[in-house]
């Protein structure tokens, strides 16, 4: 990718070359491999909760411990899963996404200087 030094951002060609580079393809793969399945997981889990609340109130009202019922437990678990996904994503991004993005950015900015 030494060719990127010839062109500045704003010209399509330079960006198309970066986009086609193996490093960038790998970065995109790492990003999408995480965010798309994870989005599917939390959306399905949330919709399941909404559907249960709408159509299975009897199930949600089963008492587990004192007055604490299934609905309250699943509701609080939605909070827990949100916190967990947030933490997992931050770790993944710090470890896999940031270094890769930084490397590409620095190489290009370095070659322009």
């Amino acid at each position, binding site marked *: 990718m030494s060719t990127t030094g010839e062109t500045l*951002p704003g010209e399509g060609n330079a960006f198309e070359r970066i986009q086609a580079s193996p490093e960038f393809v790998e970065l995109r793969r790492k990003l999408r491999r995480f965010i798309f399945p994870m989005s599917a997981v*939390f959306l399905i889990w949330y919709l399941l909760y909404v559907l249960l609340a709408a159509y299975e109130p009897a199930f949600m009202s089963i008492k587990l411990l004192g007055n604490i019922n299934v609905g309250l437990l699943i509701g609080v678990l*939605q909070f827990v899963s*949100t916190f967990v996904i*947030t933490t997992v994503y931050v770790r993944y991004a710090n470890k896999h996404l940031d270094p890769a993005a930084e490397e590409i950015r620095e190489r290009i900015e370095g070659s322009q200087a």
Partner: protein
Amino acid sequence: MSESYLAAAVGKPGLNIAIFLVFVLITLVIVFWVGRSNQTASDYYAAGRAFTGTQNGVAISGDYLSAASFLGIAGAIATVGYDGFLYSIGFLVAWLVALLLVAELLRNTGKFTMGDVLSFRMRQRPVRAAAAVSTLVVSFFYLLAQMAGAGGLISLLLGVADDKSTFFDGQSLVIAVVGILMVVYVLVGGMKGTTWVQIIKATLLLVGAAVMTAWVLGKFGFNLSYLLGEAVENSPKSGEKILGPGLQYGKSAISKIDFVSLGLALVLGTAGLPHILMRFYTVPSAKEARRSVVWAIWLIGIFYLFTLVLGYGAAALVGPDVITQAPGGANSAAPLLAYQLGGELLLGLVSAIAFATILAVVAGLTITASASFAHDVYASMLKKGNSAPDAEVRVARRTALVIGLVAVVGGILANGQNVAFLVALAFAVAASANLPTLLYSLFWKRFNTTGALYSIYGGLITSVVLIVFSPAVSGTATSMIKSANFHWFPLSNPGLVSIPLSFLLGVVGTLVGRRERGAEAGYAEMEVRSLTGLGAERADAVVAHH
């Protein structure tokens, strides 16, 4: 016991006003202080991109935890129990959409507004116009909700009744004062001042809610089950039902579908709210944008766990009947609970926090709407990008004045509506008009101008039309217009229809639209910028090189 609540005002109006004035005074001093350094467009719209992720995260929770969250959700849980809890879960889970799919990529691609990202690789003028229209509509709905909340709150605190015989009564005066203050914050402080107001407010709100939560739990020996039991005891009409879902939305097949529709709008709305998206431009990098969302998720999540305790606590200690009969209705659950716990002083403090909440959110909405008009409509469309930056900021300031006026008039009209419900409508419009185009532009190579216009206008028009002809607006005892009935759409929340339709229209538009010249290069530039942060605006960047 209920008589003391039904008296004209709760607590001492003088004390309530005094505490509120202290807050206004402190924030005004800060806003004037930080406003001195507002010079460039980047200062005014994006606070020079100099806030840290942590500061911005606190400000985001201040922007997001509106009157709907504090007054609306606590009130809904107190009166209809579990169904009120769904709001908080939807409002929270929605942040994962922002975290995983939107925040960082948006920060890397845009400068000031949502329109920057939506129009990045499209034909500028039509897409910016569409983005500005939908920004203004969503912000207007959101503003209405906040203003309505202000009116309801004041009726409780100052004993100013909602006088239906005249247009401009005591509550209207309060709404007007809120409007004037918000315009002052925005004009003087710009984004920097607005952000500080939000940070202060978020801190007050979180500390206040934490203290009340601990207090309530303490009254029940820190035993949640015991608290829930007392809430049931004190809810003679509904009893056990308040602990399970269905009290509000379980009545019929239609109301259950309505519940699903609401759930969908809540989870997909957040990442399409222009005033939330704009906050990501106030930090120096995508990594800081991520840090902001993480802080926001934790703070917002913890706050909603507090409201669960406060809502059931209000049911147990004040009682749903007293709450619904109080001036301000369900929205008054949290202030009434404060009065029950800590008397006049705590009531005054909590009310001041609720006011601060409304003020901070309306200020955030105003700056977003005015930025969108000045940046997307004036600078990019009318002046075709050739306007001087200070002229753009001047236009933004004038727009803020107009928005303040519109919000005051609209707020007076919407006074008395359920705040959480009105906000849910804003979420439905945001999820329909903005989110599909945002996701398609970031992730779908083929997506084009026609697709963007179909999706934005299609989602916007469908959601607004369905709201107008819904039972929320006319035909039922809880409608905005009770005297007329022109509703034909059965659901109160249009999300279930308008959101999938908007996603579909984005695809249809893309397929019927012609391929644009340079589309491949445009997508390459957008994708490389969004993923790597190449060429992204930095802190205190010199503006307008685009």
